[in-house]
């Protein structure tokens, strides 16, 4: 049995989802010869450390009852540096202004010899190349499947399953909130403002929906795709971004009459990065509705490969995080 020790920073929806997934898959992991032990968890109030493995059920209960897992005053940085473990999992909230605290966490992890798995897109949208270099310089894995498309395994698909293919272009819907709003506007012929309020009440849109509806979130994900898949060294400013706020129900009706739907599409084609509303033929595989995410990858050998699935959600995102953890664990 191979013992792999993890530390987790950030114990919100995704962090708790990962804890649930590890608990749920304990037998499966053991059958694979893996003993995954979470030895440290840090949230915004402090840390819990247990070198022999934290009782995750108890930690989840404490988080629910007390609002924190913290039992000590230690910081995430101290946990990363001083606690012996193999994989650091950064699940802290996305901050696209300066990438913190995830950015510092990840650099510290690489300096301390920890492999990194993350769902936090902020640091990657801002400093992908630096992070990648830091991992390579230290001979460490850097896995970030959950940063783009939630449960949809875009990077694993391209880097592993489609190995040897040259990717000609990628188009996708990478923001479930926008997809929900456009789908509802089209189905119900409702104006944008009305559907946005509905989405906010359902918890699909944030109180401040700017990042989603202006295409900023989509653009950050496209930057990660551009860097990871096309090796572009792109930053947010390289993306031409148009959001969905100006879209009218009448435009969706005209599109519908002509067998199109309107979707907020992220595209990386010919070195150009664009996030913009696009006409998608109704029968095209990109025409998925609701909060679904989708990515359509055009390659030289395999042709077009399209995958869609849930782009958000606690356990769905944890699926991608767990898959990355297992990739690292199996390769150690």
């Amino acid at each position, binding site marked *: 049995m191979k013992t792999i020790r993890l530390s987790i920073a950030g114990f919100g929806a995704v962090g708790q989802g990962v804890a649930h997934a590890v608990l749920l898959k304990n037998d499966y992991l053991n059958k694979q010869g893996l003993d995954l032990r979470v030895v440290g968890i840090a949230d915004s109030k402090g840390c819990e450390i247990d070198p022999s493995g934290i009782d995750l059920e108890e930690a989840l209960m404490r988080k629910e009852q007390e609002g924190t897992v913290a039992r000590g005053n230690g910081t995430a940085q101290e946990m990363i540096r001083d606690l012996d473990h193999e994989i650091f999992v950064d699940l802290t909230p996305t901050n696209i202004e300066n990438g913190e605290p995830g950015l510092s966490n990840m650099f510290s992890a690489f300096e301390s010899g920890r492999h990194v798995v993350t769902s936090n897109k902020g640091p990657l949208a801002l400093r992908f190349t630096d992070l990648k270099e830091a991992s390579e310089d230290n001979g460490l894995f850097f896995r970030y499947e959950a940063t783009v498309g939630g449960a949809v395994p875009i990077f694993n698909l391209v880097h592993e399953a489609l190995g040897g293919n040259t990717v000609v272009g990628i188009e996708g819907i990478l923001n479930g909130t926008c997809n929900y709003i456009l789908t509802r506007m089209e189905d119900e012929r409702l104006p944008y403002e009305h559907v946005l309020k509905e989405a906010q009440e359902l918890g699909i849109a944030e109180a401040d929906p700017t990042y989603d509806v202006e295409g900023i979130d989509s653009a950050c994900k496209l930057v990660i795709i551009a860097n990871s898949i096309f090796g572009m060294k792109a930053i947010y400013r390289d993306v031409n971004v148009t959001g969905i706020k100006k879209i009218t129900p009448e435009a969706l009706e005209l599109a519908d*009459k002509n067998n199109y739907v309107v979707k907020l599409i992220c595209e990386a084609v010919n070195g150009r990065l664009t996030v913009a509303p696009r006409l998608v033929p109704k029968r095209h595989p990109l025409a998925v509705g609701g909060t679904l995410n989708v990515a359509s990858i055009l390659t030289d050998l395999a042709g077009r490969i399209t995958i869609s699935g849930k782009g958000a959600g606690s356990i769905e995102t944890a699926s991608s995080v767990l898959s990355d953890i297992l990739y690292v664990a199996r390769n150690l």
Partner: protein
Amino acid sequence: MFCSPNKLITPLCIVGGMIVSMTLELKDIPGQLVLALAPISEMHGNIMSVVHHRDERTPRGTIPVQVMFGIEQGVLDELIERLEASGVRVARVGEERLRAAVSVILIGHIVHSDIGDTIDKIDSTGFAEVVDLSLSMPGIEQPSSAYLVINAVGEKELTNALDILRDVAHKKDLLVIEPIRLNSEGK
């Protein structure tokens, strides 16, 4: 309010495609037209018009039917094979002058920013034309939405026409919604 100019050509759903005018000869018995049109639709062709020339019955007793449709380049030979295999005689195949087509949606104060001028900018190129327009105006102060089909003599000219449209739309503060780029396989 919806209005659409009374033109024969209906909107196309292709980028990287071609517009084909084909004359088919059908036997004068029921069910022949469906037999002829099904393969076009199966190959994702977009049928724009169908005209029966009943008064031009051939010496063979068949009726010429002229079908105009948009279809992806590269599948035309297979389509002809399929049609002939199903017993439809393909008498003539011609490619139209305006071979490439794109559909776009505009949103904003389209009428007040002079829709005629916007169309003229495309039509005056000599290589591209706006061939269909549907306009929806919900209220005086509210933004309008329009669906346009632009045809051009070739792909390069179509790209130029779209550049012109983007430029005009930018100056008039109109949002242009274009089709996805990788719509055609391998393009």
